[in-house]
């Protein structure tokens, strides 16, 4: 990890030392903006910090580690769209506002699945609409916004139907839209994968701490080999997925999708076992371990299903083999 990424991680952990520190969505949003996160991926020429995707990858992991609320992932997609779109008159102002924390939301589904799973649509100014034909910013005034209550609850999701004839700013059309949309889907997958790995790290640490303190049969549960081996397997899965994540931040969208499927599965596996490790207390609402399991399930369902991505990856493996 280079200096920049170390700094990003350190500064995040000062502001959000643990997951409890990030539970107020409004405060969290202000802190993210103050940390410069929304400027991170914007080139210096456009007023940003000019960081790379693998730097953003660190931010995504921190978001998951602290189980952050709010529409930050949507904001990163909107920022990327503004940066990548061909220049247009309002771009500078829109970028400036978005970097300062004015929320633009977008669906956390892969393109072509309608405007579902849109975080904080009730407070955002605009929504980024992504499809293979057009990428545009659409005004949310007068839109029909329906709450989509989730088991997760850490992010507030909505279904959106923009009002007919809402003012819209086109960012890309035709072949450019298709390329941009793919790129944004890739970024969405990177974000969800990182969120999952950060969350898995927190919930695994939580579980291991619990096993170390809970005593039965005159010894800590952590002494039982049956539990050690399961914990070790989770650690192996997490470290392996993390290595893939770190190596593929610049990968093509399809590889990012398959990577997301892998990492989200690991998050779910770790969180599922963590609840089991806690025994009865893991089933109580007061004890936070369930929060991570629910976030893991939602992450897995966002950004395209494992079935979709794995099938696409399988197709690609076959094609690559017959080409090469």
């Amino acid at each position, binding site marked *: 990890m280079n200096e920049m990424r170390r700094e990003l991680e350190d500064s995040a952990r000062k502001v959000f030392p643990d997951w409890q520190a990030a539970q107020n969505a409004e405060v969290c949003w202000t802190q993210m903006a103050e940390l410069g996160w929304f400027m991170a991926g914007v080139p210096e020429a456009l007023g940003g910090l000019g960081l790379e995707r693998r730097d953003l990858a660190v931010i995504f992991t921190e978001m998951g580690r602290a189980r952050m609320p709010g529409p930050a992932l949507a904001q990163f997609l909107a920022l990327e769209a503004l940066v990548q779109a061909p220049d247009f008159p309002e771009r500078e102002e829109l970028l400036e506002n978005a970097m300062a924390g004015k929320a633009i939301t977008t669906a956390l589904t892969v393109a072509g699945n309608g405007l579902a799973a849109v975080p904080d649509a009730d407070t955002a100014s605009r929504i980024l609409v992504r499809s293979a034909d057009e990428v545009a910013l659409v005004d949310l005034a007068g839109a029909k916004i329906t709450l989509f209550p989730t088991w997760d609850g850490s992010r507030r999701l909505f279904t959106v139907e923009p009002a007919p004839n809402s003012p819209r700013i086109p960012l890309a059309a035709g072949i450019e839209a298709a390329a941009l949309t793919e790129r944004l889907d890739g970024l969405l997958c990177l974000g969800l994968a990182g969120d999952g790995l950060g969350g898995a790290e927190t919930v695994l640490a939580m579980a291991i701490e619990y096993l170390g303190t809970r005593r039965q049969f005159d010894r800590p549960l952590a002494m039982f080999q049956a539990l050690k081996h399961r914990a070790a397997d989770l650690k192996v899965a997490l470290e392996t997925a993390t290595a*893939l994540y770190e190596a593929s931040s610049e990968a093509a969208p399809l590889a990012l999708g398959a990577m997301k499927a892998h990492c989200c599965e690991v998050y779910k596996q770790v969180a599922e076992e963590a609840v089991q490790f806690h025994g009865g207390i893991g089933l109580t609402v007061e004890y936070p371990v369930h929060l991570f399991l629910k976030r893991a399930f939602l992450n897995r369902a966002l950004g395209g299903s494992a079935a979709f991505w794995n099938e696409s990856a*399988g197709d690609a493996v076959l094609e690559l083999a017959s080409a090469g």
Partner: protein
Amino acid sequence: MTQQDDALRREIRDWIAREAPLDWRTASTHEAFVASQRSWFAKLVGAGYAVPHWPREWPGGGRSLAEQKIIYEELARADTPRLLLSFVSTYHAFATLAECASAQQRSHYLPRILEGETWCQGFSEPGAGSDLAAIRSRAERRGDVYVVSGQKVWSTMAQYADMCLLLVRTSGDGPKQAGLTYLLMDMRLPGVSVRPIHQIQGDEEFAEIFLDEVEIPVSQRVGEEGAGWAVAQATLASERGLTLMELSYRMRGAMVRLTEAVHAAGRTCDAGILRKLGALATRVDAVCALADRFLQKRMDEDERAGDASIVKLAYSRCLRAWSDLGVELADLSGQMHGPITFGDLNSGNWMADFMNSYAWTIAGGSDEVQRNIIAERMLGMPREPKNWITEPGQ
């Protein structure tokens, strides 16, 4: 990546294109395979690629870890034969001789390794596997020799070895680690007999060594009497990173065997199979990334306790899953017994590959032992009480 690295990569790639054997998979007997191993090793020694991890004074030695990585990456990419026969000689015997042996032992044995003398490791015993310190092969000092009797098992290619790294018990007193002594044994000594182990995939990569009153000169001892355990640690720590990287890359290269199997099974449009294939390909990529990251940590001297166990466990489980998907794809045709390919973990003879994959989930510290290491040394989970004591009345 520096210019020198690029130059090295080009150089070795060109050399491999000219010199690498293409027919190594056609060996129909283990002896033929071993002969091809010997000639491939000799070629690598001649070109200076056999022992990049040895010091500079040896031909081809003095390479940085980054350069070693390039060499193994290219050897894997070109699907050259893995160096099975000389592996213990160039890593385990070398590390032991370099770190713990006398100058005289070093100067006698190291050149012979490059000339093709091969070594095996005589550590495990029927009663000392995961619990290696429980070794019972007994060495009794009589004048200038140790007289050794006992049995060793799981010695890789011992039937072809000239020398053996032998761990024996010289004392039964005190902690069991303290009574061990390390010897360099000539396999041609009277009283040494070797029996190959017939493995479940049809190969004989491992052997048993029987020791009956073998007289080993005291001058063949490495370290002091009773210091064998510490010397053995040097042997065991000799290699992990590069081999697992090489194996992971070979597994990735062999994804093509799985795609061939998908075609052969006529299941290119089977969504369920495509999903499994895609998920596995991603997992294989992840294992490669993990092996890369581990080597990088070694280069940065940033390795944590347990890191090596994580890589081994990730690889061994993935290898099993890789061959398992092949067996599934081959379906009934995969159950037909046919000739095996020696020295290949990713042959596409799926049942053989599956059976062969146990070598990596058991050898070099079983998956279960690796899990203990990860849980205790990395996750900080407490060890069980050291001694198992039968409670009164039981």
